[in-house]
């Protein structure tokens, strides 16, 4: 192009041009990186989870599929196969729709009560389809419960009772219609229990009115009419806990929580008996807690650190049965026959769990006693649900569904773990990655390709697949070959950097390492520091960081990760620190900090043992340096003047910037503590603005080039700063959800702030826009997603910042002659000369989370990852969000790759990286650059986990997995053959010509 040859064009030039065009044709393929259906599972994996189980109901009566219906803390209602633990179906409810209770009605519907007792839904047991949904008017949020009545032979319809506060709703289990509704009292009645005496048309409801009155109601089953009611008051009052022991006896705790009161009621007569606990427990003192144990004639109370099982013989007669010490779990009662009930006690003893099943016929002895060995990384037992089956010899066998401390779910039968589910992975808090160890010498890779014939056969099959000539059997064979190729599941580092360990921290305080090849758990550890203990009552996992990444020459050392937690939910609670080996999961170091943790800053510095320096900022704005050694301090002092940080105080509507200063004397413990020095603060007017979201660039993002060559060979310099903070504020009136504000009230301001100087680089106002705002910052641009109330559609805006002060440094001659301004002094106080371009587009869906792809060197073009409300992840090319898009781009702009402007962003179904899968409850997407520049690994998590790798500009630097070597061979062979044929032909022709 550069040559200024004025010669007439020769044929050669035309050919060169043609070749160039053909080359262009290759590379200007589609924007999306789509997947063929037979490539599913090749580079991606998807694991389904449900979360920590709260309630479980077994369904084993009928022959056929045996299942257990569970509801979890992740608002999932699911039906699991009792034999394997696989999910038959599951439904994830809305994020505020917490499930209160689950039950089975009519033997075919799963009934869930959620949202504080206000929504009752029925799901079809075989397939999870919603059958009906009912909303109950609940005036005050109170603890609500569900009670499915046994069949009363009233037609075929059973009633479902929902009670909470002072009201009872009876709904038909067929269609969810409210049959009757009863408000029992206008006083502050709290219904404790509802029960139905055998074979009667009457329901009894017992509860407390205020703190000292006990009330009993008898209600007609059919109409909800109150047949009988009685109240009595007890002078020392109640604390609100009660346990129903018999149909006419309730045991409650008194107001001081130190003694039991048995309440017997019969025919409107209520009698109280105070029971002295010291008769039962000689050295009793302190407080008592009543444990919910739905068991006839039994009572469980917790005193200090042990639990007492008591048998109630009469209104004032209690018998001591057994004392259980922590940790333990007790199941609800399970009816074995009409007269007999059974319940299970599980007790933890080091690494063993003892199972005991007792029946009410004989409390002294056990029906069943088993002991199993339990993995210590699962922690203690939290819950147990039991179910029975009839053995061939007509005795009762029992199954135990156990929920462990790490949220895993296990089914135990006959002293063995039948299956287990690692459901802690449904609540990942944070994640990081670690490289795998380098392949050791002597380990041969050649074993994979057995012989040439097998290899060729495999490739021929693949060729058939690509040419659409394969039969379904062959397609299956191809799939199997691809999945079997164990290459991706090896435990060593690979050349392309696709194999890594993803280290995740779950809410239960468990750290797990997942292999990127298939998502299997390589190791897991329940951090002792994040377990409930005497010193730390309510631990809470926060973040996980890379702590030590050994350099290439120190390969004998294992990398390690740092887990930071907090004791309790307050900001001033002391912090927890744990260092875990990335390859083995061994806890190397663990401590409870003396200070709190409000902000963690990994610094771009390492000490001589390659431990990364971390600054922990506590609630008192003191910065603590870790690791605490003189070497790290030395490194840190060199960099200290360059360390700036900021804090966002959403409640105060304030952003403040700080630097650090040291006040302590050397060689003291205070040496590692630094004081924050406030440099600047930005206060948003609270009457008109409220901080909605902040976003910064990823600390480890790599930018390949500062300059952007635009059409007509002009250059624009990107304003690249690690210290750019994007802040979006919304009008307080429109801070709520969509539908709560009018366009006139709504305003959204977007700010770009330099966090070192506190200078606002750019500010833009969107009229009639409101949150929720999601934003992502990368290189020199910000993309944010918000709701436009005027158009009533979601919008995405892009802001790009360019450095104008360097805009003149384009001329080479100026640089050569020294007439450039590169040496001009740069000052904090000088106003940066920036140019801002922005544009907005409509976007169809609500967004749950946004991220941007990152590659090893930042050369590959970027894609935005958008987690949509449908729990899918969409990869959208950044070229669609380019403020230089116009309706009619010029020829040169077209060549540059600028897409003509459209009012909305296109959603191409093929660019969903989750293809036909959903990452239920999607919360976050993490991008991990691979070693191969074109490729990035994406790990998205929510209730489910999904991992894949994508190439935003296609894999330009390597052959794709489905590259057909056989086709290449055939082509070469054909070409060689053609050469010989043409050679022979030309020989012949020459010969003929010579003869002529």
């Amino acid at each position, binding site marked *: 192009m550069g040559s200024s040859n004025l*010669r007439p064009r*020769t*044929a*050669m030039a035309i*050919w060169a041009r043609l*070749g160039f065009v*053909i080359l262009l044709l*290759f590379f200007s393929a589609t924007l999306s990186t*789509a*997947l*063929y259906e*037979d490539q599913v599972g090749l580079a991606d994996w998807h694991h389904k989870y449900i979360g920590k189980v709260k309630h479980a109901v077994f369904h084993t009566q009928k022959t056929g599929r045996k299942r257990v219906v569970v509801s979890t803390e992740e608002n999932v209602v699911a039906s699991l196969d009792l034999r394997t633990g696989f999910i038959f179906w599951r*439904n994830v409810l*809305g*994020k*505020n*729709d917490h499930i209160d209770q689950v039950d089975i009605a009519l033997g075919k519907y799963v009934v869930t009560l959620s949202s504080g007792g206000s929504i009752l*839904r029925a799901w*079809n047991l075989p*397939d*999870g*389809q*919603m*059958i*009906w*949904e009912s*909303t109950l*008017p609940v005036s005050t949020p109170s603890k609500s419960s569900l009670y499915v009545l046994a069949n009363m032979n009233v037609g075929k319809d059973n009633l479902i009772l929902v009670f909470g506060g002072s009201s009872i709703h009876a709904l038909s289990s067929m*269609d*969810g*219609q*409210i049959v009757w509704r009863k408000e029992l009292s206008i006083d502050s009645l709290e219904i404790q229990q509802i029960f139905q005496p055998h074979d009667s048309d009457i329901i009894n409801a017992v509860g407390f009115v205020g703190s000292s009155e006990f009330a009993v109601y008898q209600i007609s089953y059919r109409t909800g009419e109150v047949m009988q009611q009685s109240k009595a008051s007890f002078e020392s009052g109640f604390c609100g806990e009660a346990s129903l022991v018999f149909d006419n006896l309730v045991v409650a705790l008194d107001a001081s929580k130190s003694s039991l009161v048995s309440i017997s009621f019969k025919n409107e007569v209520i009698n109280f008996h105070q029971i002295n606990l010291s008769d039962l427990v000689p050295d009793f003192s302190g407080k008592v807690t009543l444990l919910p144990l739905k068991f006839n004639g039994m009572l469980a109370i917790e005193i200090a650190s042990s639990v007492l099982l008591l048998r109630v013989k009469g209104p004032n007669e209690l018998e001591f049965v057994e004392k259980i010490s922590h940790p333990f779990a007790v199941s609800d009662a399970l009816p074995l026959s009409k007269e007999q009930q059974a319940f299970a006690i599980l007790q933890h003893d080091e690494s063993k769990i003892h199972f005991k099943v007792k029946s009410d016929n004989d409390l002294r002895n056990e029906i069943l006693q088993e002991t199993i060995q339990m993995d210590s990384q699962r922690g203690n037992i939290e819950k147990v649900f039991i179910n029975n089956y009839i053995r061939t010899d007509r005795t009762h066998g029992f199954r135990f569904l156990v929920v462990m401390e790490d949220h895993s779910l296990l089914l135990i039968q006959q002293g063995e773990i039948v299956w287990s589910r690692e459901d802690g992975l449904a609540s990942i808090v944070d994640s990081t990655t670690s490289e795998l160890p380098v392949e050791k010498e002597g380990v041969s890779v050649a074993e994979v390709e057995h012989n040439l014939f097998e290899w060729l056969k495999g490739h021929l099959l693949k060729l058939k697949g*690509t*040419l*659409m*000539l394969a039969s379904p059997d062959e397609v299956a064979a191809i799939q199997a070959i691809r999945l079997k190729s164990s290459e991706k599941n090896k435990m060593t580092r690979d050349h392309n950097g696709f194999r890594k360990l993803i280290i995740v921290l779950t809410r239960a305080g468990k750290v797990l390492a997942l292999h990127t090849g298939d998502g299997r758990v390589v190791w897991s550890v329940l951090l002792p520091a994040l377990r409930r203990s005497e010193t730390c009552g309510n631990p809470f996992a926060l973040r996980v960081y890379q702590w030590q990444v050994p350099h290439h020459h120190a390969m004998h050392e294992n990398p390690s990760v740092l887990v930071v937690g907090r004791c309790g939910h307050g900001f001033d609670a002391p912090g927890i620190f744990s260092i875990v080996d990335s390859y083995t999961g061994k806890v190397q170091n663990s401590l409870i900090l003396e200070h709190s943790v409000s902000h963690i800053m990994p610094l771009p510095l390492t000490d001589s043992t390659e431990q990364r320096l971390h600054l922990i900022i506590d609630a008192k704005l003191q910065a603590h340096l870790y690791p605490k050694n003189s070497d790290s301090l030395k490194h840190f002092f060199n960099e200290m003047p360059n360390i700036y940080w900021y804090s966002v105080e959403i409640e105060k509507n304030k952003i403040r910037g700080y630097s650090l200063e040291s006040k302590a004397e050397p060689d003291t413990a205070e040496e590692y503590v630094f004081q924050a020095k406030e440099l600047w603060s930005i206060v948003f007017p609270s009457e008109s603005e409220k901080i909605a979201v902040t976003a910064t660039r990823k600390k480890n993002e790599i930018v390949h080039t500062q300059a952007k060559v635009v059409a007509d060979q002009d250059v624009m310099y990107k304003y690249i700063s690690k210290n750019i903070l994007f802040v979006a504020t919304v009008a307080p009136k429109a801070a709520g*959800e*969509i*539908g*709560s504000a*009018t366009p006139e009230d709504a305003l959204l301001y977007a700010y770009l702030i330099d966090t070192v100087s506190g200078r606002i680089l750019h500010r833009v106002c969107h009229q009639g826009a409101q949150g929720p705002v999601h934003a992502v910052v990368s290189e020199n641009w910000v993309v944010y997603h918000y*709701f436009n*109330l005027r158009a*009533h*559609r979601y919008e995405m805006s892009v802001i790009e910042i360019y450095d104008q002060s360097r805009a003149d440094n384009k001329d080479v001659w100026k640089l050569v002659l020294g007439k450039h301004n590169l040496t001009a002094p740069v000052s904090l106080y000088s106003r940066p000369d920036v140019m801002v371009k922005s544009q907005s587009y409509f976007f*169809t*869906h*609500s967004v*749950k989370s946004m991220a941007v792809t990152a590659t090893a060197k930042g050369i590959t073009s970027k894609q935005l990852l958008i987690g*949509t*409300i*449908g729990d*899918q992840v969409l990869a959208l090319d950044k070229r669609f969000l380019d403020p230089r898009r116009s309706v009619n781009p010029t020829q040169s702009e077209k060549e540059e790759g600028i897409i003509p402007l459209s009012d909305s962003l296109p959603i191409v*179904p*093929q660019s969903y990286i989750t293809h*036909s899968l959903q990452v239920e409850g999607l919360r976050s997407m993490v991008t991990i650059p691979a070693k191969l520049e074109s490729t990035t690994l994406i790990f998205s998590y929510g209730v489910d986990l999904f991992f894949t790798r994508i190439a935003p500009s296609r894999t330009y630097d390597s052959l794709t997995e489905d590259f057909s070597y056989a*086709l290449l061979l055939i*082509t070469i062979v*054909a*070409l060689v053959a053609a050469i010989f044929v043409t050679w022979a032909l030309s020989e012949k022709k020459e010969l003929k010509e010579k003869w002529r």
Partner: protein
Amino acid sequence: MVRSNLGQDSFRFDSTGLGLVTRAIERERGDFGTRIELKRTRRVAAQHLLIRPRAAVKRSAASLVVIVSSMKLALLLFLVLVSNFLPSSLAAPSSSGDGYTITGRVKVEGMTSKGFGVSSKLLNAKIILNGGQSVTFVRADGYFTFHNVPAGTHLIEVAALGYFFSPVRVDISARFPGKIQAALTENRKALHELILEPLREEQYYEIREPFSIMSFLKSPMGLMMGFMLLVIFVMPKLVENMDPEEIRRAQEEMRTNFLPRSS
């Protein structure tokens, strides 16, 4: 009392569903009639508002309708609607306590003609109000309901794998609780009934094209071969057609260009 009587009227189930709607509008008018009697000061405003439902009746009997009634009535009405499996869908926001009720229906082509079966793909379709404020599921007959929705402008989204649904803007008027409007936000098409149909089916996978000569020729290998063949067969022809003088000049040019560099 006018209110409840008329409300009872509208329960008489009409096989077409349209009758129900018109009657409900009449009832509404009745309702406003009573209001005018009670509040003479607001008469003018009320008359203004009156025009709207009438026009709506003229335009389309099956337009969106709001039924104002006491809480019990609304619930009962809803239950009647549900239990009878109304053949035609309607959005019936009705005020109850602290909000309205939105009922709609998701309809996907290929459903059984009787209208009760939902294709297996729709089994887990979620209906999302205002970007996650509340989430409900589609029932077996395709209906869904949101309760206690306050007046205002809302957004309903359908998340169903395999289909692309446009979000729907639903306006519930606060001033005049007899008016509701719904429109697809993607193409601004107004909906007379809250029947949500997918705009298109989504194909998440690239479709492998069947083997054809063209696709082979378009592949890099095919292009390479084609290019080579062209060079082999067409180039000599082009060279032949050229002026021998020009060839000589070009050769000379090349010599002068490359020789100094190689030396």
